[in-house]
């Protein structure tokens, strides 16, 4: 490392440890300071990674996919840099590299697994040149933050242009991702779920991609998983689901998940159809880049989604599952996962409208909450800054709910009076505080 880089790294580390002493996460500051001192720091450090640099983008599933990929590599005895905390903007990414250096300010790493916020790709990719970009999916997200979905696609395609040698790992079931990949000119590989899993009842979920991203005509689906994901074909221009390099078949999706890829039976002990995509994305990126896949299942058995993604707690005899639900596609998938559990259950929903959540909560009306109208749902409590909006949303599908702005009170109430099976669904800024509350309660026992 050059002298300037060393000064940058030393200073950034000092700032990070000072922040930590003051009880604050110093990740963003450390990244910023390192960049200010040595603008080229990200390139200098990422060049020291011996094998591959992976980045993970996409609306939903970034953190789970990135952390799982990192775990798979570590499991193979590799040294990996990862922004596990989910600090996924430019400074967070820089910080992940800087804080991983040794005393001589050099990296000892075989791989880097970095998740990046879609909007930040245009700031990261000028200096970081990854070998792979895993694009999980493109869904409608917080409209006031990201703008319409067209804007996200535009940012991503401009960013991809900056790294022409990067191979894209694409969800072939997502026409928006595929059209983006085709237009980019980069090489790409695909994964997908290659069989009909759900009955084709026309649900009303928003499907941004149902008009062909190439020509604008309405697309036909021979089967359909969720949102715009499925087996699609445009009758006008012929744009269709591409050849799938890593197809999953033999899908089991209930209180656990299982599928077959490359003649390997893969199973995971958590719920949520969307998690099949997360696992498959990791499998595809790892297998294609030459990682030994023998230990993949063992890794998966030990892997627990952290940071409140399908995270399980047992408190005072109550099973609690905490999950992030921050946009219609993600929320609908969460509802699927909850309804796959046929036992009686209580639900807590926390909705905030801080900047990171999106100030606009109208997306709640694009979620299929009517499916919570079944008898096995014994109660729904609404919490958070916009609990009023959530209660109103449920009223219009004839579901009554209990209003309790404080999630801690709501949880304590259900521990006492609930059916011992509790799902807590929260959007972004509620996630860490709710997780901390649950961790604390777990410790109190």
């Amino acid at each position, binding site marked *: 490392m050059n002298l300037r880089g060393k000064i940058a790294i030393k200073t950034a580390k000092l700032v990070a440890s000072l922040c930590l002493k003051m009880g604050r996460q110093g990740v963003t500051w450390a990244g910023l300071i390192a960049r200010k001192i040595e603008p080229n720091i990200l390139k200098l450090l990422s060049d020291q990674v011996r094998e591959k640099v992976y980045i993970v983008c996409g609306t939903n599933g970034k953190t789970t996919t990135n952390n799982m990929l990192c775990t798979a590599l570590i499991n193979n005895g590799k040294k990996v840099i990862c922004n596990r905390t989910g600090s996924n903007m430019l400074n967070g990414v820089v910080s992940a590299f800087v804080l991983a250096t040794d005393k001589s300010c050099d990296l000892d790493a075989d791989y880097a697994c970095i998740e990046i916020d879609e909007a930040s790709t245009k700031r990261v990719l000028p200096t970081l040149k990854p070998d792979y970009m895993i694009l999980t999916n493109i869904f409608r997200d917080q*409209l*006031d933050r990201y703008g*319409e*979905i*067209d804007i996200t696609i535009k940012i991503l395609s401009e960013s991809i242009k900056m790294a022409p040698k990067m191979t894209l790992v694409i969800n072939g079931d997502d026409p928006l991702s595929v059209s983006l990949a085709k237009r980019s000119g980069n090489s790409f590989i695909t994964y997908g779920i290659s069989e009909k899993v759900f009955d084709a009842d026309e649900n*009303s979920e*928003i499907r941004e991609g*149902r*008009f062909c991203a190439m020509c*604008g005509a*309405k697309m036909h689906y021979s089967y359909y998983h969720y949102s715009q994901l499925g087996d699609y074909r445009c009758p006008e221009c012929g744009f269709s689901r591409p050849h799938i390099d890593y197809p999953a078949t033999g899908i089991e999706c209930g209180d656990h998940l299982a599928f077959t890829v490359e003649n390997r039976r893969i199973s995971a002990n958590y719920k949520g159809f969307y998690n099949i995509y997360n696992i498959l994305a990791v499998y595809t990126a790892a297998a294609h880049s030459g990682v030994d896949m023998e230990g993949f299942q063992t890794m998966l058995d030990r892997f627990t989604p952290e940071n409140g993604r399908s995270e399980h707690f047992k408190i005072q005899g109550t099973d609690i599952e905490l999950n992030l639900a921050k946009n219609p596609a993600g929320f609908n998938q969460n509802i699927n996962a909850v309804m796959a559990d046929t036992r009686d259950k209580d639900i807590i929903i926390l909705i905030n409208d801080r900047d990171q959540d999106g*100030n*606009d*909560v*109208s*997306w*709640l*009306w*694009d979620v299929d909450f009517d499916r919570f109208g079944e008898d096995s749902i014994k109660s729904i409590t609404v919490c958070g800054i916009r609990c*009023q*909006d959530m*209660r*109103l*949303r449920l*009223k*219009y*599908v*004839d579901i009554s709910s209990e209003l309790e702005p404080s999630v801690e009170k709501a949880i304590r109430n259900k521990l006492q009076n609930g059916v011992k099976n509790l799902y807590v669904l929260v959007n972004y800024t509620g996630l860490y505080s709710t997780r901390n509350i649950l961790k604390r309660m777990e410790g109190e026992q």
Partner: protein
Amino acid sequence: MKITIGHLFPDLLNLYGDRGNIQCMVQRLRWRGIEAEVKAFGIDDRIDFSVLDIVLLGGGSDREQMIVCNRLKEIKDSFKAYVENGGVVIAICGGYQLLGKYYETDNGRIEGLDIVDIYTVQEKGRLINNIFLQSDLFEMPIVGFENHGGRTHINNNKPLGKVIYGKGNDGKSGYEGVVYKNVIGTYLHGPLLPKNPQLCDYLLSRAIERRYGAEASKLTPLPDKEENEANKYIVDRYSDKVENFKEKIRKLI
């Protein structure tokens, strides 16, 4: 009694929970024992305005609006006749812009329906935030969320309300939306109607009056606790801000 709601091009114009506006109208009719039918029109469907009581024109991206605008040219005359004949229209965001003569964007001009004498020009910077208005149609304020790059100029038309907190039509005039005959155009989503039951019932009652007469249009009151409290939450949250701001100004003077 039955009310038919026409949802125009939900495949394309479905931003910001427009579904919620449909759900709100349908439920508030059904809760009163009035039958509700929703006809969702695709871009190529023939639209018979004579069977419709309420038309919802929602918002879409500029790209989607351009596709819709080409189709609108073909139905312009029948749409206009429906409005002049007292037909109820609720047009939101992109739909509001399409009511006017044109929407001048950076990528060219989108011709509107020319139903109301208004026009929109795109300017730098989007107006994004919670907003609430005082309308002279109702005592209860109208609350919502705005997110638009276009600035709409309503000429001498009547606005929907005076902006108490937020930006409104063009960020300068202090007014939001437009009211013309039984047409309401507004940038407010959130979605608009669930948190503004007074406005929803206004539309319903106008539609019922037009088809079934004045007597029938007197709606049974509903228990609107959840609606009113969600509305009041926004009003209270931003009234404080308005008050604090006034207080600061007072101190400065």
